[in-house]
């Protein structure tokens, strides 16, 4: 393909353009906000680590148009493997850095419980992302580009999760009796205010999830906490080998035919095939570079948070909040959600839950908020600031690249955003995370459950693309006289 040179007006030096000044204004706002927080209490550095990593994630996500929804959706919708390749590059890099962090003893990772809930939740999540136009972090960076449709997606993800984890009603009776019985046993050792046997998500968590085991490949192979286990089992076997196999499959299915036609190789040698693989990996320079950057940063994020936990002698940010005198919104264990690495959906659930709590709807009687994650004020929600950092980082990058544009939703796109976002929220909670927390952060740290999530998400996205294509064909046929397609 020939690509014509980009014709961008060069009337002023790029640094002096209005949009560049606005970008620097946003950056200055984050710098001043950080200094103000440190002036209140230097221990806020723990929260600021989330802010600044979020800022870097957002900038890189926007630079590489890095959205995991696109990774699975565009394979089926337009047969483009660009983003799937980018994600695999990021997984490989994150896995290597995560191995170094684990070997250094600073890993903050906890494996997810393995069970059928992952594939079902991931399929619902994957179906939803086709309609919202972005995954959980993709919606954040697109909000940073001025896309208010993506803001609607975030709102839908926030409130749907908050409702899913805390609502109780007639649907509680739909859960299996065995879960209720198991939850009742668990309830004997839990504070009564958690009402564990009330609310289907509490029953699901206590009666089903707590009976499952989360583990790493090193543990499965009996090499837990050894260097061999970390390198061979967690990194090579769980991350690098599947990445290589997926890249080969993407090349064979989506890229090889076009590449050989363009390069005129009728009988390719192994060298030609490897050159084709390399061409596929580098075909979108921005995506590949973002993948490399995100992979390295995600690993470093774990290291920095792990080192800070050691420095302050804490396991969770809640302990630091208590020490600083902030006790509102903590769980009954005095903890808050604090993964120590890139994560998206849980803090968004907390935003929704916090607003519901302020409106008088008690959400703290749920396991999700009351026992595990708390409902801190958004101004003290460290991972929440990572999400805000992603929006601001993407805004800075979009402004510098003159790609920022306020975009209001239409009725059609708003409907897709709200319905798709709600499905994403429901799916993420069932699967115990989104494409970041339940996939990206797991497979890179030796937890094979993330690949189950990817399979579920791919199935959901495939069905989603079929439904979306059907809707698009019906819609364009109905408006054929207006749109001509």
């Amino acid at each position, binding site marked *: 393909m020939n690509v014509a040179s980009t014709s961008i007006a060069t009337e002023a030096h790029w640094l002096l353009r209005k949009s560049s000044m606005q970008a620097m204004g946003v950056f200055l706002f984050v710098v001043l906000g950080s200094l103000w927080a440190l002036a209140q209490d230097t221990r806020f550095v723990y929260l600021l680590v989330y802010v600044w990593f979020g800022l870097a994630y957002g900038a890189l996500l926007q630079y590489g148009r890095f959205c995991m929804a696109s990774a699975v959706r565009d394979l089926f919708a337009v047969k483009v493997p660009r983003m799937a390749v980018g994600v695999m590059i990021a997984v490989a890099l994150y896995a290597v850095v995560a191995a170094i962090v684990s070997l250094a003893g600073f890993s903050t990772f906890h494996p997810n419980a393995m069970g059928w809930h992952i594939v079902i939740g991931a399929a619902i999540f994957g179906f939803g992302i086709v309609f919202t136009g972005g995954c959980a972090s993709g919606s954040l960076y697109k909000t940073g580009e001025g896309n208010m449709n993506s803001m609607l997606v975030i709102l839908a993800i926030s409130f749907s999760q908050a409702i899913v984890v805390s609502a109780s009603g007639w649907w509680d009776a739909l859960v299996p009796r065995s879960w209720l019985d198991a939850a009742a046993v668990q309830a004997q050792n839990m504070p009564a205010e958690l009402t564990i046997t009330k609310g289907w998500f509490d029953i699901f968590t206590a009666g089903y999830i707590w009976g499952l085991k989360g583990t790493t490949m090193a543990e499965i192979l009996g090499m837990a906490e050894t260097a061999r286990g970390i390198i061979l089992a967690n990194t090579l076997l769980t991350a690098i080998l599947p990445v290589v196999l997926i890249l080969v499959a993407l090349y064979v299915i989506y890229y090889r035919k076009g590449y050989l036609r363009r390069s005129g190789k009728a009988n390719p040698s192994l060298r030609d095939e490897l050159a084709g693989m390399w061409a596929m990996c580098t075909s979108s320079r921005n995506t590949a570079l973002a993948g490399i950057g995100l992979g390295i940063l995600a690993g470093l994020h774990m290291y920095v948070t792990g080192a800070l936990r050691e420095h302050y002698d804490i396991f969770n940010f809640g302990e630091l909040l208590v020490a600083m005198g902030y006790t509102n919104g903590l769980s009954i264990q005095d903890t808050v959600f604090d993964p120590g690495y890139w994560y998206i959906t849980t803090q968004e659930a907390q935003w929704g839950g916090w607003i519901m709590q302020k409106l008088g709807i008690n959400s703290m009687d749920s396991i999700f908020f009351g026992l595990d994650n708390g409902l801190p004020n958004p101004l003290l929600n460290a991972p929440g600031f990572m999400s805000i950092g992603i929006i601001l980082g993407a805004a800075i990058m979009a402004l510098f690249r003159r790609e*920022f544009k306020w975009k209001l939703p239409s009725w059609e796109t708003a409907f897709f955003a709200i319905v798709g976002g709600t499905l994403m929220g429901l799916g993420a909670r069932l699967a115990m995370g989104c494409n970041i927390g339940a996939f990206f952060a797991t497979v890179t740290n030796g937890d094979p459950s993330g690949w189950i999530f990817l399979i579920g998400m791919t199935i959901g996205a495939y069905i989603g693309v079929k439904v979306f294509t059907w809707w698009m064909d019906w819609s364009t046929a109905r408006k054929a006289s207006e*749109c001509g397609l």
Partner: protein
Amino acid sequence: MAMSFNKTGDHEWELNVCGYTCPHPQMYTKKALQKIESGDVLSLKFDNPSSGESILAMCEAEGSDLIDRQDAGGSFVWKIRKA
């Protein structure tokens, strides 16, 4: 805001998908490229930056040429000659 697809001249077409987010722009582009003849030029207007990467990759795979691009202020006007 509504998607529009029009013939603007001999072998020239215009697809406007401004206001749409993923996956609409790339899927409408694919549909439009299927509809026009080889050698025809499609003028594509969109304002969802991430769709651009997928559209570029789609053109590369099909062998279509991006013969002109105007990128500014978050809006994009690309001319694609179908292979």
